[in-house]
């Protein structure tokens, strides 16, 4: 399927630049937009622009927010002694959705990856160390949870940070790896299963 209109093709082009969107899906999205009432499309376009104009980064945790500091950093009901370190703001939202974490966060803005030209200086690592070294008015940081992805890049970043944190009296932990809940043991890949077996816990 090829749209004959140039402006539709431009829209397809824009959609296909989004992560995880192939050309086929981009065409489907463009076709959907074509069918929508104009008011809905205006609303969507305004939301896109607002995100760049209004949203700022919290100068403490580097999460996206409307105000600085962000509500999480401001909240005194959350434990400032535990910092959960994530790669992206979307990871923070994933941890937050669990409702099981009541500490504070630190968003790195990515992971170390020479192939992508990303070094430690491109991430908010210095700022994390500073939070641990000089907590200011807040409580002493007792634990740093490295909730980075279990990828080569995430693991490299985790090791890098753990080395920098070694001189401080702070516990550094990683997320456990295991079998995803809701997945069938039979269809869990054997490597994950082996790792999960190794990290088994007593009941």
């Amino acid at each position, binding site marked *: 399927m090829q749209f004959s209109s140039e402006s539709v093709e431009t829209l397809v082009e824009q959609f296909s630049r989004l992560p995880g969107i192939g050309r086929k899906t981009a065409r489907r999205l463009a076709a959907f937009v074509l069918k929508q009432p104009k008011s809905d499309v205006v609303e969507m376009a305004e939301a896109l622009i607002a995100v760049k104009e209004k949203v700022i980064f919290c100068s403490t945790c580097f999460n996206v927010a409307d105000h600085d500091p962000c509500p999480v950093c401001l909240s005194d009901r959350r434990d400032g002694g535990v910092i959960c370190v994530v790669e992206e703001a979307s990871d923070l939202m994933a941890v937050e959705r669990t409702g099981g974490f009541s500490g504070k966060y630190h968003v790195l803005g990515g992971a170390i990856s020479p192939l992508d030209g990303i070094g430690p200086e491109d991430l908010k690592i210095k700022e994390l160390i500073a939070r641990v070294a000089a907590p200011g008015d807040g409580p002493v940081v007792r634990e740093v949870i490295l909730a980075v992805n279990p990828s080569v890049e995430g693991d490299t970043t985790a090791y890098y940070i753990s080395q920098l944190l070694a001189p401080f009296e702070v516990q550094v932990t990683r997320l456990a790896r295991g079998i995803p809940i809701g997945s069938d043991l039979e269809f869990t890949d*054997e490597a994950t299963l082996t790792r999960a077996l190794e990290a088994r816990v007593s009941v």
Partner: protein
Amino acid sequence: MIIDRIHIRGLRAHNDSTVTFDAGVNAIVGPNGVGKTNILEAIHMLCLSRSFLTSKDNVILRRGSSLMEIEGHFTKDAGGSQKVRLAFVPGEGKKLFVGGSPLERMTDLVGRFPVVVFSPDDQRLTAEGPEFRRRFMDNIISQSSPVYLDNLLRYRQVLKQRNELLHASRRARRTPDEMVLESLTRELVMPGAAIIADRMAFIEAFAKHLDDAHQKISEVAEKPGIAYAPFGRAGIPEADIDSEDGSFPKGGITIPNESREQRARREKRVFELYADQLERNRRHEIARGMTLYGPHRHELDLTLDGHPVRRFASQGQHRTYGMALKLAQYDYMQHRREERPLLLLDDVFDNLDPARIEAFLAILGSDAIGQSITTAARREIVHNHLDPSACRTIFVARGGEVLEDETSIEKVPPKATAPREEPASPLADSLTND
């Protein structure tokens, strides 16, 4: 394990073909270039998600076709059948289904349907560079232990990152960030040590299988030798570690009679040796701008009566050795998984003398081998040595048409075979970066 039936659509010569197999010896007969080998490629793709001839799926796609689809029905040795389906659409990639459930990663397939391929390329195993022998090892161990493939993929990804760090720094004439290099080195050594420890354990068990296989097909009494010694010949003393140390082992292959604790200690020792090697050579690696040490560089030494095969063997010795390695692979995998691998033979008989064909077909027909599927340009190659009733013969005519008898095959003069491409590793691309 056997394959009962395969349905192939949109793969090179095959527009829409169905082939049925017997549990024993199967011969696919027909003139060159009609698509005999494509049937073996299709079977291989169902076992390891890719062809044994190329890693490029676009090359395998039939010209003008917008979809390639392969469906196979397998029966496990313990009974129970399983359907595997692979679909490939250019631009959208491959999808695999086992028993109707989609596989998340192609690599999850490896090891479930064990397969061994014999091809004329096997001579390169002994005659050419170390990357061929590394691929050979990696193929067998990956099919035997899924954790190995996982470590291999992991190692390869860290290697890319580490090489880029070293290379980019060299290009910019500055030293790489010391702590980033240290972090990547540690990430490299973890899967690297597991790979090395697995390879060592594998070779220890494999040597006996190679000895047996070589004896079966060689007419002269020569003794094959196989050695993997990444840190010299002295062997590896165990490391003193607390058995509570949970970071080891990461690999899965143990030396016969080795306990899990011993394995953990051995791997830890390998870890220390490898880490030390990288530490001692750091300046050298920074100067060269690449990773110079590790399993991606290791050699598997093959000898015949103590002489290096690569330099001293004759044409005939190379051929025998290559076949012995593959036969030993079959034997090893069968013992390890208690599942008979599928044996695919691509045009191996065409260049063999009658005595060797005789010896080899005797092995195929024996109880040592389960199902085998071989291609041959002429039916006589198989039928002169094997009772036609003990062998299912499948004929392929021009245009990939699959026939039960040969009456309708056109008599076409054999075409010159197309030059072979670089053999693709049947698994993840090889570790070779040199």
